[in-house]
Structures are given as C-alpha cells and as structure tokens.
C-alpha cells in the first residue's frame, strides 16, 4: 500500500516537474518573447503565419551560425564546426550558403527557393480550380444558349449571291493564329491538368511522351502564334476602331437573342471588335509572359513591372502592399507562369464563344473564313452598312469605267 502511494506520488511529482517548464514556455510564446524560445519562432509567429500575415523572419534569416566560432580541432566538439544542420539549411533557404554546382546557368546555385511552395499551391489549387470552372461555365452557357436560341439562321433565306468578305492573306493570318492558339491551349491544359486528369487514366508511362510532345508544341508554336497575332493586328486594326453603330449594336444585343433583329454594322460589328481587341490585348500579354518563360534569364519582366506598379500606388491602395522589386529568376518564372495561365484561361473563354458563333452557332458564318465568301443576304443581315459600302464602291467603279 505504502509502495503504491509512493509510486503515485512519484508519477504526480514528475508530471508537475514536466509541466512547469512547458507552461512557462507557452506563456513566453504567447507573450511573443523570442528570448524564451532560445531565439526560435514564437507561438505568435506561428499563429501570424497561419493567419496569412507576413512576419519579420530576420531572427531566422540571420541565424546562420558562425564557422569562425567553431571549437578548435583539439577540442571535443572541434569536428562539428560552428554551424549546425539547421543553420546550413537556413543559409540555403535564404540564399546565403556558399554553394558550388557543376551545372552552369544564372540560378543553378539556388538549392532551396523559398517562394516555390506558394507557387506550387496556387498552380495545383486555385489556378486549376478557378480556371477549369471558368471553361466549364462558358461551355455550359454556350450549350444552354444553343438549346434556347438554336442556330441563328439567315432570316431572309440564302440569296445564292456571293460577296468576298476576307482575302486570302486575311484568312491565312486568321488560321495561323487560330491553329496555333488551339494547339497551344490544348497543350497548356494537358500540361496543367495532366497530373490530376490524365495520369490517373493512362498512367505515368503513357503520359510521359504526351507531356514531352506538349512541351515541344507549347514552346515552338508560340512563334506562329505571335506572327499570326501581328498579321491580324496589321490587317484589321483600321476596321476595328469603335464607331457610333457599335452602341446601337450592343443595345440590341447584336440581334443574337431574338430572330429578325439585325442592328446595322460595318465590316466588323461590335461583338467582333470586342473579340479583336481581346485577342490583341490578351495575345500581347500572353506573348510577353511566354517570352519571359522561354528566356527566363534574358527577359525577366515582373520585377520591372512591380517597380512601375509600386510607383503608381495602386497595389498599396488595394491592400496588396509594396510589391517585391527584386526577384530571383525562379520567382520571375513563377510569376510569369501564373500570369500566363490566368490570361490563357480568360483568352480561352473568349475564344470558345468566338468559335461557337463562327461555326455551329450561326448559319453561313464559317464560310467567311473557309472560302472567304459569304452570302449577300447573310451579309445584309449582319453587316448591312458594309454591304451598302460595297454597293456604292461597285457603282462608283462602274460609273468611272469607260463605256465600250
């Protein structure tokens, strides 16, 4: 009995002894006194990080050990040097370690890149989720539009008279841009969603050559895409400046929602102008970030962009704070990649609508880009002012031609 009481007392006293310093540590952490943690992070640091707040990590960044204070070789601890494993990893993490590598290149000595996890989480999380949902929503909306409105027919019936709508060079530019965009979009989607959507179905071995092909396509079809973009910009910019007819066209919804409504338009209506400017702006943006990804060490763009943005004061105004003005090559690539993918999703959403209306959504629309000719009645219903301009031009030419 006495032995049992003594054993219980010993256990209880041990518990008290163990709990006293823990309690003291916890109180010290809550108080945010780093001295109580021996210079390590406090509970408040951990909680702040969990709340997504930026903490001053100078206490870690500067705790890199001191080789000069190492014990002498003759000392019992001499072979350990003045730097612990934790301090070595901190030095690697904060880019302070003296790293020697056999590979060449501007960033090969970066062994740990601190911002990489944040990028990976965004790439595998929000980017896939929101981007994928956007495309699904657009496809559902187009499907519903087709079910409710059906194919937009030529109300007056086809006349059989053909008008030349696009010259060969215009169609060439369009298809150069369109073909490369579709392959770039598909290869980009396969690259982004491959791990979650394709590997579980076909396996890693089968996916490897697909991924390799997608990489080649994505890297090299960027060039015809940019050439096509430049070509359509030069060929169509003059006809895509907004005019007063565009407002009427927009107010009537382009006549897309009700049969028999045909707001007047010149060669390009307001809807086509919106697509044109979206393609030019998004195309230039995606080309810039793509070039930055193709030549990450030659064409870093985000640090320079952040300097300009900080000067405007907009990031600070909307609560983003001061954007980083010095970025490592990896960080440049991570920002470029995220921006590239965000722009690509918006671009694909716009182009899905364009593809719909230019193919299954409207009778006679595809002819404009396949043969370059459209039916006169189709043209009168969708581009009435353009047809009048063509008629006036033909009349003037007929009058000016010498009589035989």
């Amino acid at each position, binding site marked *: 009995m006495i032995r049992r009481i003594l054993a219980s007392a010993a256990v209880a006293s041990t518990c008290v002894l163990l709990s006293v310093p823990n309690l003291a540590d916890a109180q010290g952490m809550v108080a945010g006194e780093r001295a109580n943690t021996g210079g390590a992070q406090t509970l408040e640091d951990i909680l702040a990080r969990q709340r997504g707040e930026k903490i001053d990590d100078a206490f870690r960044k500067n705790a890199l050990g001191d080789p000069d204070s190492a014990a002498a070789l003759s000392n019992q601890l001499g072979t350990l040097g003045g730097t612990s494993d934790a301090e070595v990893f901190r030095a690697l993490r904060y880019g302070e370690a003296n790293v020697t*590598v*056999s*590979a*060449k*290149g501007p960033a*090969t000595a970066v062994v740990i890149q601190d911002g990489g996890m944040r990028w990976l989480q965004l790439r595998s999380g929000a980017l896939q989720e929101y981007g994928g949902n956007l495309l699904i929503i657009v496809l559902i909306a187009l499907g519903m539009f087709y079910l409710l409105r059906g194919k937009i027919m030529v109300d007056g019936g086809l006349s059989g008279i053909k008008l030349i709508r696009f010259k*060969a060079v215009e*169609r*060439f*530019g*369009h*298809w*150069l841009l369109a*073909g*490369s965009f579709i392959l770039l979009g598909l290869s980009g989607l396969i690259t982004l969603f491959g791990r979650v959507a394709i590997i579980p179905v076909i396996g890693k071995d089968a996916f490897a050559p697909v991924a390799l092909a997608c990489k*080649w*396509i994505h*890297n*090299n*079809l*960027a*060039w*015809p895409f940019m*050439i*096509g973009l430049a070509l359509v910009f030069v060929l169509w910019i003059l006809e895509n400046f907004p005019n007063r007819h565009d407002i009427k066209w927009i107010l009537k919804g382009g006549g897309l929602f009700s049969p028999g409504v045909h707001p007047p338009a010149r060669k390009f209506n307001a809807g086509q102008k919106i697509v044109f400017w979206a393609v030019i702006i998004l195309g230039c943006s995606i080309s810039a970030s793509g070039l930055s990804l193709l*030549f990450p060490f030659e064409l870093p763009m985000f640090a320079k962009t952040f300097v300009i943005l900080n000067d405007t004061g907009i990031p600070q105004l909307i609560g983003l704070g001061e954007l980083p003005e010095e970025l490592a090559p990896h960080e440049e690539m991570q920002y470029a990649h995220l921006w590239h993918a965000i722009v690509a999703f918006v671009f694909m959403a716009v182009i899905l609508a364009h593809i719909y209306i230019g193919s299954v959504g409207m009778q006679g629309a595809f002819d404009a*880009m*396949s*043969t*370059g000719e459209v039916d006169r009645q189709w043209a009168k219903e969708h581009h009435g002012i353009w047809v009048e301009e063509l008629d006036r031009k033909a009349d003037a030419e007929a009058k000016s031609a010498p009589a035989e």
Partner: protein
Amino acid sequence: MKTMIIAFVAMFALAIGADLALEYAGYSTEERTSGDAVRLG
C-alpha cells in the same frame, strides 16, 4: 479551305524552323544548363 491548310502547314514549318534556329543559336536546354565539364555531342 486551301488557305486554311496552307496556314496550318506554315504553322508547323515555323514551329520546326524556330526549334532548329534556337537550338543552332545555343538555346537548347543541354547547351544552357550543362557545365563546362560536360561534352555535348
């Protein structure tokens, strides 16, 4: 349709040309990332 097919052929021609040109100019991954001690074929 002929113009569309020509554009697609041109698209691949430009892509292959760009790939070869960049490799020739020393922008291949091997060229950019291998150390001096590595002998590339």
